[in-house]
């Protein structure tokens, strides 16, 4: 077996896409105009698949902060924080994130992917056990694999199944790490966190919640599902990303546990990675200030999410979950889904196409992500495009 033999399946899949003349995984945005508009294939396009939930990528204050940091601190840090030192902005952002969540401390990572990789792999190694929701993101699975802990899946959003598996662990349950997400990225559905917290109280263990798609989106102040449900103090580790609601890049973990600081010395994805660039840190800090200043953006986001969800429901589409900033349309058949996605693009609407095995339950999904920056006219235009394709079907 040759080095590249394992890629034969991928090559075949790509050839099939080539035969159809559609490649949703190689979209080039020729020009980005605003958080919600771009030019793709020479066509003015509404962007409804960017995870730009609060629409802050073009926020003038964030851009000004980033520009200032760029001019005063340079384009990059050229090294890791452990080996080459932290900039003051890195630590200030950690202090601000900890204060925002009312937690003892925070660690900032270079990406959201690395936040999961870095936290999970450092926390749980050989001899430890992790229980993860079956629909968790790849970064969570990869973190489990990197650490080498025994990893057990439980049925998606099923606290009873989690309890069953903790019971099977016996005394080991008390030190198990349980990992779930606030909003799941594919279908936009939420974790039954209150039930999961109740199970954790019964059996013990530590709970980590990934709020990648719910930080800045849910809760009175935007802390996420943990805040919305009033269980922020029942969660041991909250991880998330700056790349979605805050419109830049980076990841974080906040915790009340004093051992959090030790993670820095044990986490290979933290130690052996270049730290976030000064402009990225500056824009994240500014975006956090905007998040703290009020909930108008969140309100607008939820209004838009309701509008799109209601519009697509009225058209008769099957949706993956209740209204949320992720609105996923379930379609039958891979080729039909590919053609649907391509036709939407031709109608000037960019969304995400999600195919098995990346999707839960083997479904094909047209995944829209809503932004506070979408105008109601843009949401109407997205619905109109879906209506045209519904009429064709």
């Amino acid at each position: 077996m040759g080095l590249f033999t394992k890629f034969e399946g991928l090559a075949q899949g790509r050839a099939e896409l080539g035969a159809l003349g559609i490649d949703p995984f190689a979209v080039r945005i020729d020009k980005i105009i605003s958080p919600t508009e771009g030019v793709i294939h020479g066509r003015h396009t509404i962007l409804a698949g960017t995870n730009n939930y609060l629409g802050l990528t073009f926020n003038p204050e964030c851009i000004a902060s980033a520009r200032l940091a760029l001019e005063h601190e340079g384009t990059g840090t050229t090294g890791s924080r452990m080996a080459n030192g932290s900039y003051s902005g890195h630590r200030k952002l950690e202090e601000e994130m900890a204060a925002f969540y009312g937690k003892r401390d925070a660690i900032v990572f270079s990406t959201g992917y690395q936040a999961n990789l870095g936290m999970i792999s450092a926390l749980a190694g050989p001899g430890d056990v992790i229980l993860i929701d079956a629909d968790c993101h790849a970064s969570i699975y990869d973190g489990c694999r990197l650490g080498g802990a025994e990893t057990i899946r439980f049925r998606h959003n099923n606290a009873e199944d989690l309890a069953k598996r903790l019971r099977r662990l016996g005394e080991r349950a008390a030190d198990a790490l349980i990992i779930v997400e606030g909003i799941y990225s594919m279908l936009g559905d939420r974790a039954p966190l209150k039930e999961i917290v109740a199970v954790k109280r019964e059996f013990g263990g530590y709970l980590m919640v990934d709020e990648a798609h719910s930080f800045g989106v849910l809760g009175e102040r935007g802390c996420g599902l943990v805040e919305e449900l009033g269980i922020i103090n029942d969660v041991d580790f909250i991880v998330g990303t700056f790349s979605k609601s805050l419109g830049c890049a980076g990841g974080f973990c906040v915790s009340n546990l004093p051992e959090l600081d030790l993670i820095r010395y044990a986490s290979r994805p933290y130690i052996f990675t270049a730290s976030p660039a000064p402009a990225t840190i500056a824009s994240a800090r500014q975006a956090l200030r905007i998040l703290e200043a009020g909930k108008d953006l969140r309100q607008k986001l939820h209004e838009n999410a309701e509008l799109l969800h209601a519009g697509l429901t009225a058209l008769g589409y099957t949706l993956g979950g209740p209204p949320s900033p992720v609105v996923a349309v379930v379609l039958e058949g891979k080729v039909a889904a590919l053609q649907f996605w391509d036709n939407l693009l031709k109608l000037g609407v960019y969304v995400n196409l999600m195919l098995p095995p990346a999707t839960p339950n083997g479904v094909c999904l047209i995944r829209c992500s809503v932004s506070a920056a979408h105008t109601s006219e843009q949401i109407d235009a997205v619905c109109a495009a879906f209506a045209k394709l519904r009429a064709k079907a």
Partner: protein
Amino acid sequence: MTEYERILTDMTKGLAPFTKGRVEVNENTELVGDLELDSLQIMELLLFVEDSFDISIPVSILPDVKTVGDLARQVEKIIGNT
């Protein structure tokens, strides 16, 4: 009957809904090659096996499971460790 044989017998019976009678199942039957199970069906099969034997199967052992016999040996190992 050994523990392995008992597990294999129970598992073979339990596989019936997944084979739909198309293939005669023995310890050398491949889950993907012979039964043509896709990743979703394998997930369902594992959940079924876990509930049947009241165990949890770690994700890390899955790359080593190709046949029904491989799965039965893993189940035997997990039962032996509990």
